[in-house]
């Protein structure tokens, strides 16, 4: 082969490998930095205690308020978003709705998907002021639900669309109605994709800080009602990183480590479910 062509081939291959290595190095770097700095200040009382007096000056306590708060917020929002997203994804099938309307709705979902979370936060705040709700668990759940709907609905829609039409035709040929087919055939076939969508949205929701910055508030207590303000992990990271006290800054990394662990575990679960459930799927 012509040496010049050979050189070009080699040069670009090296550049591409370098780019890929850079990407993996940044992933490894982030995990290592967070793990090493986080493990140094992570201990049991960080996880099971709420902040005590003087916590933000480096005294005793933990971030149980943020862990529980985040779980409350995201669990609530996941359930609400699921209740809206699943019907949306199923109703987008071509038996229910014309092609034009479906295309427009998908486009709207794509735009909502890309809308920055700070915009959801600002909009959520407007709605809350309008309704007279203060920064609270309820407000945070509402905003996170809005944020998660497009993520979940689009992922579910993709899964539903992958169900082969022949399969549905068999059900229709036996006299099943659209609802019966949707529930008995499409839902089961799309189940792995639906689960993945839910988990994906959960992961996105739990890490989002900008949307709940002014809608959920922050507190040292674990909330007892929907109207209480609530702490959350991403904001615990953010606020602690912003304090001047070194001990508290170090604890930001502990909070970040917990958050990172949750996100990665959620991702793993999504993968495993995808493999597990897809055994009995007709393609």
């Amino acid at each position, binding site marked *: 082969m012509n040496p010049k062509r050979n050189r070009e081939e080699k040069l670009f291959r090296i550049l591409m490998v*370098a780019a890929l290595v850079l990407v993996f190095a940044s992933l490894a770097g982030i995990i290592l930095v967070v793990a090493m700095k986080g493990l140094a200040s992570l201990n049991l009382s960080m996880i099971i205690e709420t902040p005590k007096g003087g916590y933000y000056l480096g005294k005793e306590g933990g971030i149980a308020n943020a862990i529980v708060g985040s779980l409350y917020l995201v669990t609530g929002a996941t359930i609400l978003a699921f209740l809206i997203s699943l019907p949306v994804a*199923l109703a987008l099938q071509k038996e229910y709705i014309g092609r034009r309307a479906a295309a427009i709705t998908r486009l709207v979902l794509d735009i909502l998907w890309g809308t920055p979370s700070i*915009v959801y936060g600002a909009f959520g705040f407007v709605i809350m002021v309008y309704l007279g709700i203060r920064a609270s668990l309820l407000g945070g759940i509402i905003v996170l639900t809005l944020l998660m709907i497009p993520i979940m*609905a689009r992922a579910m829609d993709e899964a539903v669309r992958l169900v082969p039409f022949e399969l549905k035709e068999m059900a229709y040929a036996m006299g099943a109605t659209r609802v*019966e087919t949707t529930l008995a055939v499409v839902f089961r076939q799309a189940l792995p994709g639906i689960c993945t969508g839910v988990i994906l949205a959960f992961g996105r929701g739990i890490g989002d800080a900008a949307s709940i910055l002014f809608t959920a508030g922050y507190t040292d207590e674990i909330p007892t009602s929907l109207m209480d303000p609530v702490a959350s992990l991403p904001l615990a*990271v*953010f606020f602690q990183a912003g304090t001047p006290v070194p001990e508290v800054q170090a604890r930001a990394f502990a909070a970040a480590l917990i958050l990172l662990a949750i*996100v990665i575990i959620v*991702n793993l679960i999504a993968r495993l479910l995808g493999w597990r459930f897809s055994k009995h799927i007709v393609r």
Partner: protein
Amino acid sequence: MMPSGNKQFIISRLSGGRRIREALALVSGRLVLILINALALLIFCGLLWKAAPLFGIISVSDWLFSSSWHPMKNQFGLFPFIVGTVSVTLLAMIIAVPVCLGAAIYLSEYAGRRFREIARWLIDILAGIPSVIYGLCGVLVIVPFVAFLGELMGSTTTGYSLLAGGLVLAVMVIPFIISISVEVLRMVPDPLRECALALGATRWETVKYVVLKKAKRGLLAAVVLGFARAFGETMAVLMVVGNVAQVPVSLFDPAYPLPALIANNYGEVMSIPLYDAALMSAALILMLVVGAFSLTAHYTLLKIGETVDS
């Protein structure tokens, strides 16, 4: 082969319970779809409604192109913030795009299937890392690095700068752009590659003359979507970019992007009447720009789907 629309289904022949259930499902299906579309409209109109009072006081050109940001004196020139957002995003894209293209081409064209699956999974994990964590690592690693770099270049900087924001943002959007790009590249049919290889092209030549030509639009869409993503990113940038309301003139100057402006000031808006409207107008700009970019991207993405099929 498949019925389009729903004309083939005749509800009236169904008996009692089945008929009711079917009708109920149809109605509720329509309702949720209307709800979703209404929601998007509501978000847009809500922001517009809250931002509207601002334009009774200042002109659109003052709003977009004036540099005087003095909420106390009712001066709301967003220019420094717009420049901040655009420059930090452009910087991030300049850093990210070559890396993304290289990594995506390698994964799609050179790597084996198994390696590609594992790599995509790792990239998914990277994409799922919350932005505060990127910000935190940025403060710890990138800010001191930029400060050091600034010292070498002879400019005094704290490190909290445009460059730091661009670097952190680049790391954030890279996995996002890669995963779309790999998908786009995989959509190019294999026979095309085989033709080029059979003609004696090297792998790189196949990529350069065949695959990239075919995937051009899709890759552009991936970059545009990445731009839209980076444009609205808040927390990570906010933590490293310095947040000084001025038009940055060098890479080592601090900047103040629009999302950071909203996030930093929203708590205190109630005290100054038009402040609220000004911040809402910033959110509106974000939504419009990002919406326009995603529209363009999906339009071009759709186009590539058509050409590849044919």
